[in-house]
């Protein structure tokens, strides 16, 4: 590079600095990004108010006082009235710190989110709880079936079951006794299908499920376990 080169460089530097200064004064508008700051001002105005207390009371089996207590807790945690999936996963993971509960929480979220709108409202929350805590055995089993049926097509396939079981085992974490083997979920699923799948067609329908569960004493007896949670 001769002298000319250095002068070119000098000119280039001067021009760059000039542009930087101009940018500072906002004169070069078209170059800058549009509305990058506006989005920050956006208020989280998405809010949801639940249906009236009376309607909820009609839809669920909770008393008014219980509903009030539930709503107070719910509103305290989610002032906007909606629980999105990430918050849900976060909350659920606090109960199972050793393992990874995100997958199972995802399935659970879908089970609660009846209208699949991506957020749990108070009504969904309360209706779900009502089934789980105050519902009949039949209703509870139906809810469980709904949980296992990931794509909600009315059939539980082996893959769906495997996913569910794996997610449950994931919650255990790595430090278990005895050591968790790689094929444990698969084994579990095989046993489950052996029990449930009557006609051996590779899927479990709701009727097969209900039938098998009602014949199983273990399951029947433990259905009463969580009645008094609230």
């Amino acid at each position, binding site marked *: 590079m001769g002298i000319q080169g250095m002068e070119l460089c000098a000119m280039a530097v001067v021009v760059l600095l000039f542009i930087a200064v101009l940018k500072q004064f906002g004169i070069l508008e078209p170059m800058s990004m549009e509305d990058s700051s506006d989005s920050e001002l956006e208020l989280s105005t998405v809010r949801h108010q639940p249906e009236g207390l009376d309607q909820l009371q009609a839809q669920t089996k909770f008393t008014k006082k219980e509903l009030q*207590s539930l709503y107070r807790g719910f509103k305290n945690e989610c002032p906007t009235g909606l629980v999105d999936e990430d918050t849900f996963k976060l909350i659920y993971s*606090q109960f199972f710190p050793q393992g990874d509960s995100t997958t199972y929480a995802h399935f659970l979220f879908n089970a609660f989110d009846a209208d699949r709108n991506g957020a749990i409202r108070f009504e969904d929350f309360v209706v779900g709880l009502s089934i789980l805590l105050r519902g009949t055995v039949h209703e509870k089993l139906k809810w469980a079936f709904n949980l296992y049926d990931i794509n909600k097509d009315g059939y539980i396939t082996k893959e769906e079951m495997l996913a569910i079981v794996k997610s449950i085992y994931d919650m255990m974490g790595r430090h278990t006794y005895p050591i968790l083997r790689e094929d444990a979920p698969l084994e579990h699923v095989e046993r489950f299908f052996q029990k449930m799948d009557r006609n051996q067609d590779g899927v479990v329908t709701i009727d097969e499920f209900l039938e098998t569960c009602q014949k199983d004493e273990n399951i029947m007896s433990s259905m009463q376990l969580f009645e008094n949670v609230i």
Partner: protein
Amino acid sequence: MAAGVATWLPFARAAAVGWLPLAQQPLPPAPGVKASRGDEVLVVNVSGRRFETWKNTLDRYPDTLLGSSEKEFFYDADSGEYFFDRDPDMFRHVLNFYRTGRLHCPRQECIQAFDEELAFYGLVPELVGDCCLEEYRDRKKENAERLAEDEEAEQAGDGPSLPAGSSLRQQLWRAFENPHTSTAALVFYYVTGFFIAVSVIANVVETIPCRGPARRSPREEPCGERFPLAFFCMDTACVLIFTGEYLLRLFAAPSRCRFLRSVMSLIDVVAILPYYIGLLVPKNEDVSGAFVTLRVFRVFRIFKFSRHSQGLRILGYTLKSCASELGFLLFSLTMAIIIFATVMFYAEKGTNKTNFTSIPAAFWYTIVTMTTLGYGDMVPSTIAGKIFGSICSLSGVLVIALPVPVIVSNFSRIYHQNQRADKRRAQQKVRLARIRLAKSGTTNAFLQYKQNGGLEDSSSGEEQALCVRSRSAFERQHHHLLRCLEKTTCHEFTDELTFSEALGAVSLGGRTSRSTSVSSQPVGPGSLLSSCCPRRAKRRAIRLANSTASVSRGSMQELDTLAGLQRSPAPQSRSSLNAKPHDSLDLNCDSRDFVAAIISIPTPPANTPDESQPSSPGGGGSGASSTLKNSSLGTPCLLPETVKISSL
């Protein structure tokens, strides 16, 4: 766990229904839940301000006071509320923690008060939310530092009261560190300061060209060479003083190794070494070059002034604490210098007769330009060079201006801290004096009361009633308490005068105390002293006080007369003692305190020990057996024989 989690727990448990069909073993039974009363509103009354909250809210944190059954201790069944006698403003924050899960720190409250409230309600300070955590920590640290400073000052600043038994070394060291403690130290301080100044000035003047008195060489030569002897003498004198000072400090230092390693001592050494090296090194041409270099180090004597000036020390300390900023400054400057020097070199390369002969040569130009000195000995001539040169000067201003405020603020903070520390130390003395006055006020009330014989439960009540002021219930109970303590320890409260008198008398009257201890051989002075209880009327005589002070000689006379007074009742006491050797503690104590009086206050009676001598053999023997029994506190006291000894 956070509040939210507690709320969602029922939900998580309900969702466990989803595991039931998969379970291969029967699930465990649910824990028995006591019949929940449903949610109810609790009323918490804090100093009159009522706070109402759901019980569930408080139950969120079961390991705190409000969340556990501990709050039942504060439950007032009559009003059906929980009453706390605490600050309601602070309670607001505590309750908000339960509601929102975040503990906020109030800005306008004292951080210690907040801490105390947290401790009361069982909240750990770590729960302070992120938004307030930094400020909370900063304020706490500030407070802690200030308290530590105060404590340090208190401990260190007890200048005048040096223990009597300190060695010459300790005294010398104290004199060196705090020149204000004695006149000699102050004189020494000023003398050394003077000689430092003289030495520095001599070094400076040495190099000024003096014109000789009109004769010889018209050439000017420095004063140092015109008057070598004078300057040599002055130098010698100064170095001798410095050496002496250094050796004295070395001798007096409590930890010699640490002293040797300290900065000030290094400076001292560097200041005086050149002289000695100069003496040792022969004056030939080869080495004199190095010798001249050594003389440069004499300038370090000026650093010795830092012992005399606090500001200098602060400056040094600031620079040390800003080491990282200074390092950053240096680093960024170096980077910028190299960059700009390179650019300038290549920009000016083409010009003939240019000053920018190499990049290192361009360093000088860059430094001069960046620090805005602009000597003008190197100037770019090409356009590119000029452009880059101007950019260089602009950036120089920026680079230097950035770390400087940090250093300045550090210095300012440390300096003000020092000012505050000094002011606080001065105020502290006044504060402590006032507090002591208030404390002694209450003690004096008790002593006064005792002197007036107010604690006599029998005997001449009328006279005493006149002198005894009416006291409040509180005072009465307090005095009763003090009396109980006296009884328990068999010591008495007394005022400072008498105690220090006693103290002084002990050290002075060593002979007398020794002889009396001989007379009561088997029992060491210690046990006698400990087994002393004052008889009511003789309380004044025995002042084994628990406070420290100095005593005036005047009260010795007082004790004299009292001892004399006591001789009259002695026979009766003796007889009564004979009758019931193991009488009440009071009587027992009579004898004891006499003995004790002698041990502790060999005041008066120089004749006492002499008189006690003859009877010692007789009394000592029986006294021995009895006193052996009395080795523990509170047991029945010495037999009358010992009383005889003591009452003389």
